[in-house]
């Protein structure tokens, strides 16, 4: 409710800010853009003869339901989260497997990178790699659309977001489990070897994959809960 001294624009922006998902990285920018539009609209209504307060109230009224605007921004964040999750999963797994292979080729004695090494973990990593790249590829097609830019998708479905999110989470969690059970990481800070470099890279990549997966799942859940925007195009 608008108090006697508060401005309708400030009130609606406060309500919108409260409803925007905290995971949405560009909240301040989004609010600044909506504020600019509302101020412009209020200015136009003042020129038409409305009082400052009535002009702001009209501009806020024209904005539509705050819940729907927040839901549309949540969907925007979800699409971004989905894209990052597919990139982290596909590219991350491919470069990680490549790095271990390269480390093996470079002749570090402790790095084999082959399927038979490290108590069978190589086989598991390779299988995980195939699954990860398949999930990333399917998710990418569903969330990004066809490779040609004018056919790109501009929205994301919560079903595919869950698919990418849980797929990434399972791949990352399995990688961690296999790493500790079959061939524990031996990250040593004293010596700089090929193995320690590759292991460091693996740690960073797995952490990134876990974070993007969790973010993707949270956004998918927000999308499922939110009412669809009025113009879900």
């Amino acid at each position, binding site marked *: 409710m608008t108090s006697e001294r508060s401005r309708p624009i400030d009130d609606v922006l406060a309500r919108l800010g409260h409803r925007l998902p905290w995971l949405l990285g560009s909240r301040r*920018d*989004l609010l*600044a*853009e*909506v*504020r*600019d*539009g509302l*101020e*412009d*609209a209020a200015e*136009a209504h003042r020129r038409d003869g409305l009082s400052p307060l009535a002009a702001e109230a009209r*501009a806020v009224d*024209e*904005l*539509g*339901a*705050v819940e*729907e*605007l927040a839901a*549309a*921004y949540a*969907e*925007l964040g979800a*699409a*971004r989260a989905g894209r990052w999750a597919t990139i982290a999963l596909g590219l991350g797994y491919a470069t990680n497997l490549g790095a271990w292979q390269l480390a093996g080729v470079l002749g570090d004695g402790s790095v084999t990178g082959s399927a038979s090494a490290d108590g069978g973990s190589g086989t598991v990593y390779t299988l995980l790699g195939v699954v990860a790249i398949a999930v990333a590829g399917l998710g990418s097609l569903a969330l990004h659309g066809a490779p040609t*830019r*004018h*056919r*790109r*998708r*501009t*929205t994301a479905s919560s079903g595919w977001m869950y698919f990418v999110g849980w797929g990434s989470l399972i791949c990352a969690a399995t990688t961690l489990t296999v790493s500790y059970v079959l061939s524990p990481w031996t990250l040593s800070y004293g010596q700089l070897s090929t193995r320690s470099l590759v292991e460091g890279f693996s740690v960073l990549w797995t952490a990134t994959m876990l974070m993007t997966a969790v973010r993707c799942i949270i956004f998918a859940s927000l999308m499922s809960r939110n009412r669809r*925007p*009025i*113009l*879900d*195009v």
Partner: protein
Amino acid sequence: MATDRVKGHLDGLLLAVLETGPAHGYAVIEALQQRSGGTLDLPTGTVYPALRRLEDAGWIKGVWSNVSGRRRRTYSLTAAGRRALAAERRAWSTFSGSIGKVLGETS
């Protein structure tokens, strides 16, 4: 015009407005209303997220500036956006032609 009739066409409408030159959010809304003769009276809140979505798709590019102490984001059409707009126009032409044929048969 009922907002649900615009459903599915907002991307094309926004790209068409930006084809004439760079514009910020409210200018885009005003242009939509003017060019439609006032019939496209959308809730303004539908336009801002849609512009960001188009930017994420690479169809438009937004830049921040400072105008009278306010931060303002101005959007312009990219080359990919022009191709997307051409595709939207082709799709609309096919769609409206098909609907017109069916409606024409019964009128």
